[in-house]
């Protein structure tokens, strides 16, 4: 599996973040209370910015193609004639194996804001129900859209699916030189 290490310089709005949990978008298990702050054993508390729910329709396009795992072509499309910092651009990240199949993520940015994140490709092994995968995978986008950041070097406690999604997203943002 090819991993795209993350050294993208983006900004974490909402420090340290409980990356916003929106009961409205949660369909799996319990969500952390949106207004929870980090409760310290003694004194540390954090301000958690109020979640802003950004609605983007997940396009869960299933394209079971057999292309090699590393070669999702960067489709960088500038949809604004204005090359200013507000240009809307999107790119598809690397195709990643995630244990149950393959996926790739498409990110769209406008200037220095991530405006949408969708699944460009989701290929699911027969043993793993597609309905489950498509239900689970698109959930991250609201958190990322809110945090506007994935400037990390990896993940801890992650499942294969989480990692694949995030690495592909990182690679998409990288292609867009997203700062």
């Amino acid at each position, binding site marked *: *599996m*090819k*991993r*795209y*290490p993350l*050294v993208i*310089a983006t*900004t*974490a*709005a*909402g*420090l*340290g*973040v*409980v*990356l916003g*949990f929106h009961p409205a978008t*949660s369909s*799996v*298990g*319990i*969500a*952390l*209370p949106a207004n*929870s*702050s*980090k*409760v*310290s*054993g*003694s*004194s*540390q508390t*954090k301000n958690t910015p109020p979640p802003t729910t950004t609605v983007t329709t997940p396009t869960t396009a299933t394209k079971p193609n057999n292309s090699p795992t590393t070669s999702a072509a960067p489709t960088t499309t500038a949809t604004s004639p204005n090359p200013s910092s507000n240009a809307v651009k999107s790119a598809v990240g690397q195709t990643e194996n995630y244990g149950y199949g393959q996926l790739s993520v498409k990110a769209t940015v406008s200037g220095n804001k991530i405006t949408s994140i969708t699944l460009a490709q989701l290929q699911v092994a027969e043993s793993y129900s597609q309905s489950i995968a498509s239900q*689970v*995978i*698109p*959930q*991250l986008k609201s*958190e990322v859209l809110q945090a506007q*950041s*994935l*400037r*990390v*070097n*990896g*993940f*801890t*406690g*992650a*499942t*294969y*699916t*989480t990692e694949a*999604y*995030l690495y592909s997203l990182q690679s998409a943002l990288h292609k867009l030189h997203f700062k």
Partner: protein
Amino acid sequence: MKPTDEVKVFEEKVMGTVFSFLVWPGALTDDDILTLVDRARSLLHNHDEIFTTYQPDSLIMKIQRHELPEKGISEEIDEVIDLCLAAKTLSKRWFDPWAAPNGFDPTGLVKGWSVQKAAQLIFEPGLKAVVVNGGGDICCLGEAPPQGWRFGISHPWRKDAVAAIVEVEHSVATSGRYERGEHFFDPLGFRGTPVVSATVTGPDLAFADAFATALAVGGKDAFAALQEISDYEFYMIDAQGKETSSDNFTFASDN
């Protein structure tokens, strides 16, 4: 060959998970890097063979069944046992591999220890930096990027979200109900309230791993005891979604 700052990424399936290696070559050549990474891969497989609890014939299983003595069988086991003793004391028995239901089981410390060994083996003079991530046990050596080493802590229920981003100086371990096959036991019987996600940062990954195991088992009760250990920081999410962190746990800040 020209030195480069570009990171090289390698992977290895071992210990029932995927290990990733991020290597910033510095002054070392591609061939150097590959040799070092391959040596680290062999090391991990070697550790797996010794410490796996999935093979009845592994040395650790023979020790568990008292077919072999604990000490003097292998250097690796001797070292791990010493670390387990220290972790048991430091954690006030919230980590206690001798209290496992089936006998001695150092699993809660071994992966972190092994990841760290692999990273140390790769970190030769001339290398700029290396990060080894073994299923969430992460060791960073060398020059950190300007914003520091940052890792997303996976959200315990929302499979594709992160609960927080932690900034790490050297090592971080997360324990909890993330992966299949993890079973926890409370060394002193049912004392604590288990949490679903327990993250520990600190200077030694073997200890961080052991303390994360302890915290996952003991929740807020273990938290109180562990918090007294200097140089280690703790963050946990309980079954109700309540988060607790120690005073100096470094959530990545907005900069």
